[in-house]
């Protein structure tokens, strides 16, 4: 507080306005970087699950919230049906439904438009929430950096491009915002924020099944605080209302219901709730008793407590052990034991987003953040506060989860952005301060060259800089505190310089302003001028790489809607719009009540785009039903026909990429059908489809493989298409080229053969006898018959 009060106020006001301006720009950035899919393709819903959400939203806007809540959908999972209202996380749908209310303000929007742009809008919200969270942890500068990083982190873009209308789109915002409110409560001890926190948690529960991450992470953090002796009344206020109110609110969501109190996922929160109260009681008793009395009390309580604890734990273990999955849901179990799903639940293991990620996907999805994160962790320890320990804990757990399931990379992304934001901001803080204090020396030709050289032994590595600072920060804490607003502005300015050049000038103005205030006492903190300048440059280059990578990822890697495919070849751009062609055919050429069977991946799209009843869909709630379809696909034609007929199926849809080389087709997914089918119906055995453990469809393939329905439906008439029967995906000639279908007939094949629709033939009008027409064969068979028949006269 060395400067005059008036100047400080002005500076704060200026910084505040600038922060708001930057935040708006970050929001615009977050929104607009996600529009590549709309610009390059069209305003269309992407992939699989979004189509279901879109259909649900349509229903909501048409029928209102009560009908949505009670919606029994008889057009999926035929004939079981699905209670949509009770099995869907309604957050996303309700959010979009609320936005659609704009229509009543005479802003005409179609439901589809709202759905397409929900994800980009909530990405902007998420980056603002990141700003708030990081600001609570490490100040506004770190907050702005983290927000900018999050606005364009590829991992999050992959799930929230325009059209990717999925739960994660709003859930990540809800996740970050809940964490922010928790930290805010922890920092302020305000019951107001604690209540808001419970409400934010409720929104998260509404939005995504990932809410269990929150309800496990926060208790872990509370436990950490208790163990490290950081218990305070603020901690109590941050946690206790969240558990009580949050659990009550969570139980209101139909899909969660009593799960909020009975499943093991929520167990940790209650356990920590109890521990927290015990600890609070102990602190209270400690305060009112004398130390000697307290010791007596402790021994007394510990002995009794141990006995009670043992009894309770024994009962709990017995209860938990009595349930087959130990009270955990399959997905959660596969998180704790990554091999669980592949061992027991092929249906979870079969989903590609449930596979563990490969190393390159880390670089693809969080890019340079992967290198900044360790620096950020160290920065969080300087000094360690409740809030920064939470960030570290969040990061560590999410790194683990992202290693189990590639889909949870999405949870890691905000953590990585926050820690990287902290790291970058701290680094800029150090470097700009070094420059600032040495620039006057440079001009006055000061004798402090020796000082500089002694300090230049410290390398420019960000991590080491922070290490270095760790030593000295403790000495200078009060001064840094008095000067809070300035580093913020500096890092802001630098960061903004990366994005837009137009603020460069402002930055220079600020620098010059700062130079005028020499501060001799800061000398100890500084790094050599040249090193700082180079380091800043390098950091800006690093940031530049990040921006370039993110824009590339947004534009090229993650913008494809996956229902429309494109390919570049020597003769230009090819567009494969086969999926919509097929669904449109179904919509216009089949009866409204016809049932369409396909592998579950295409269930949501069929019901949303073709408006036909499907047997199974992407909500894989009934393993047996999926196994039935899998069995039918892996059975010979006649058995398959019987299975499908018993389910009243009229049409069978298969996706086939062999002609154009579309790799994620049904033949490539076929082994999962066999596995899932075989898991329920043991007569389907995986080895029957493998030749020496190899999955192949060429002439070496097993007869079971060549005669199964999936093979036949995929390759029927394939030889007529290209003449040689060469499958471009498997890169081999198919094993059986000429065959006829007896129980199915081809109804429709799309332009590039990517979707093929078959109709079940009706049962034969007549049943044939045994007599063969050919005379020669009849003669020979009569001879044979005569020879083998038992002679009645003997």
């Amino acid at each position, binding site marked *: 507080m060395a400067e005059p009060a008036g100047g400080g106020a002005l500076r704060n006001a200026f910084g505040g306005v600038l922060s708001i301006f930057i935040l708006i720009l970050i929001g615009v950035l977050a929104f607009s970087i996600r529009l590549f899919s709309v610009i390059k393709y069209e305003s269309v819903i992407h992939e699989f699950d979004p189509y279901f959400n879109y259909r649900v939203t349509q229903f909501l806007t048409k029928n209102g919230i009560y009908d949505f809540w009670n919606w029994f959908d008889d057009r999926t999972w035929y004939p079981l049906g699905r209670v949509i209202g009770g099995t869907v996380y309604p957050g996303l749908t309700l959010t979009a439904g609320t936005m659609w209310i704009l229509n009543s303000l005479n802003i005409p929007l179609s439901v589809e438009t709202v759905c397409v742009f929900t994800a980009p809008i909530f990405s902007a919200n998420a980056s603002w929430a990141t700003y708030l969270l990081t600001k609570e942890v490490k100040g506004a500068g770190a907050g702005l950096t983290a927000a900018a990083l999050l606005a364009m982190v590829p991992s999050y873009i992959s799930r929230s491009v325009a059209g990717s209308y999925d739960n994660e789109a709003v859930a990540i915002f809800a996740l970050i915002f809940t964490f922010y409110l928790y930290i805010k409560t922890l920092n302020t001890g305000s019951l107001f924020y604690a209540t808001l926190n419970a409400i934010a948690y409720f929104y998260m529960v509404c939005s995504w099944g990932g809410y269990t991450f929150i309800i496990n992470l926060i208790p872990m953090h509370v436990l950490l605080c208790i163990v490290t002796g950081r218990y305070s009344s603020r901690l109590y206020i941050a946690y206790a209302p969240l558990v009580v109110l949050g659990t009550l609110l969570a139980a209101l969501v139909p899909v969660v219901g009593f799960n909020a109190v009975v499943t093991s996922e929520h167990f940790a929160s209650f356990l920590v709730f109890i521990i927290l109260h015990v600890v609070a009681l102990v602190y209270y008793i400690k305060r009112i008793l004398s130390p000697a009395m307290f010791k007596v009390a402790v021994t007394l309580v510990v002995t009794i407590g141990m006995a009670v604890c043992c009894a309770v734990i024994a009962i709990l273990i017995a209860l938990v052990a009595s349930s087959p999955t130990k009270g955990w849901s399959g997905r959660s179990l596969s998180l704790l034991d990554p091999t669980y799903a592949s061992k027991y639940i092929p249906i979870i293991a079969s989903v590609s987003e449930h596979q563990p990620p490969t190393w390159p996907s880390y670089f693809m999805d969080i890019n340079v953040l992967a290198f900044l994160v360790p620096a950020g962790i160290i920065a969080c320890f300087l000094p360690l506060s409740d809030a920064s320990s939470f960030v570290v804990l969040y990061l560590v757990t999410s790194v683990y989860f992202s290693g189990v399931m590639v889909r949870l990379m999405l949870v890691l992304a905000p953590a990585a952005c926050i820690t990287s934001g902290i790291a970058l901001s701290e680094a800029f803080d150090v470097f700009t301060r070094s420059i600032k204090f040495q620039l006057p020396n440079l001009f006055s030709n000061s004798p402090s060259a020796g000082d500089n050289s002694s300090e230049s032994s410290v390398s420019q590595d960000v991590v080491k800089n922070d290490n270095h600072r760790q030593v000295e920060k403790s000495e200078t804490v009060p001064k840094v505190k008095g000067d809070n607003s300035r580093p913020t502005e500096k890092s802001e300015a630098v960061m903004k310089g990366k994005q837009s050049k137009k603020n460069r000038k402002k930055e220079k103005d600020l620098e010059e302003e700062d130079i005028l205030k020499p501060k001799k006492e800061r000398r100890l903190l500084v790094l050599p001028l040249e090193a700082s300048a180079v380091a800043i440059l390098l950091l800006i280059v690093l940031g530049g790489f990040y921006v370039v990578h993110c824009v590339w990822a947004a534009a090229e890697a993650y913008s494809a809607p996956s229902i429309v495919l494109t390919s570049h070849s020597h003769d230009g751009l090819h567009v494969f719009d086969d999926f919509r062609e097929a669904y449109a055919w179904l919509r216009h050429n089949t009866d409204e009540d016809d049932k369409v069977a396909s592998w579950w991946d295409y269930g949501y799209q069929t019901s949303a785009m073709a408006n036909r009843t499907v047997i199974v869909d992407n909500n894989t709630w009934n393993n047996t039903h999926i196994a039935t379809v899998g069995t039918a696909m892996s059975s010979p034609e006649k058995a398959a026909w019987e299975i499908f007929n018993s389910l009243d199926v009229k049409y069978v849809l298969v996706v086939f990429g062999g002609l154009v080389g579309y790799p994620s087709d049904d033949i490539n997914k076929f082994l999962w059908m066999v596995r899932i089918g075989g898991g329920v119906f043991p007569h389907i055995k995986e080895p029957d489809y493998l030749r020496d453990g190899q999955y192949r469809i060429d002439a070496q393939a097993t007869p079971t493989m060549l005669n199964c329905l999936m093979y036949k439906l995929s390759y029927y008439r394939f030889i007529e298409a290209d003449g040689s029967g060469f499958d471009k995906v498997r890169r081999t000639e198919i094993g059986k080229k000429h065959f006829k279908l007896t129980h199915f007939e081809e109804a429709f094949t799309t332009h590039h053969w990517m979707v093929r629709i078959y109709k079940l033939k009706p049962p034969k*009008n*007549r*049943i044939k006898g*045994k*007599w063969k027409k050919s005379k020669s064969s009849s003669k020979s068979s009569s001879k044979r018959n005569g020879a083998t028949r038992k002679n009645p006269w003997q």
Partner: protein
Amino acid sequence: MYIYIFWELFVGLGGSLDQNAVLEFVDSGRDLILAADSSASDVIRGIATECGVDFDEDLEALVIDHTSYAVSETEGDHTLIASDALIHSDVILGDKKIEAPILFRGTGHSVNPANSLVLKVLSASPSAYLANPKTKLSSPPSLTGSAISLVSIMQARNNARVLISGSLDLFSNRFSKSVVQKAGSKIKYEKSGNEQFVTEISKWVFHERGHLKAVNVSHRKVGEMTEPAMYRINDDLEYSVEIYEWSGTSWEPYVADDVQVQFYMMSPYVLKTLSNNQKGLYSTSFKVPDVYGVFQFKVEYQKLGYTSLRLAKQIPVRPFRHNEYERFITAAYPYYGASFSTMAAFFIFSIVYLYHK
């Protein structure tokens, strides 16, 4: 609407016959009487096979029966058979019992017992066998005993009816007017049963008997008139259907006590016999099971000699709406009491804590 193919006549008329054309004729729902003789051609055999009837491979083979042949002055090779092994069905053969044996001379055929569409109307006696009377029997005959069918009928899935006979003479005036006496039997009938048999069975073939139709399938909640688009679990519903039989001139009410309806979702959850009011109206009422899903009202009525009735009507059954559960449960009163008393206690505690220091 129907064709007769009497093979020899046909050949005599110089016609040509296309197997596929005949089968398409059947598949389009029309009826066929097929009488082949021992000289039946491949086309006839082909048609018969397609209908599930296998003629013997030996073209010259006749049904020979040394015990139940018809006594006759002219023939001694026992190929003229007097059979009375008729199917017991009033629908197919009329109410009046055919007393006299039926004269038959021709080739026999076999039907696959697993084939549910084909019925043997007239079978050979256990002592019959199929062989060529002109040659010596070198190997055991391919078809023997009552496995030999003399006259069979086939009702296709589209209810087209086909009669297949191995004898053309069966239909002839000579046979129907001749005196018949079964070997070993004292009774001598003035007239064979052929005429009555042929008349009755052709009535059946041409749908003048045994043809059912179901109309006005409807279902509703008990006490309501309109048909809902969806039921709720545990609803009480009524189901009704009217079934009529074609008498040759008009639709008459069909009366039976074995028509059943299924409430079906992958397997029948409810199976109820419909009661009728003697005027063709069948109805029943039942409670929707406590299972939601897409159900079907299924009537699958397949009775010997009648056209099959297959009715399926899809109807979804939904669970309770959120406001259809009981609002207050008696068993939960302790919990209501607990929560309200806790609230009151907390309120009092707060007042005491805050204002009584």
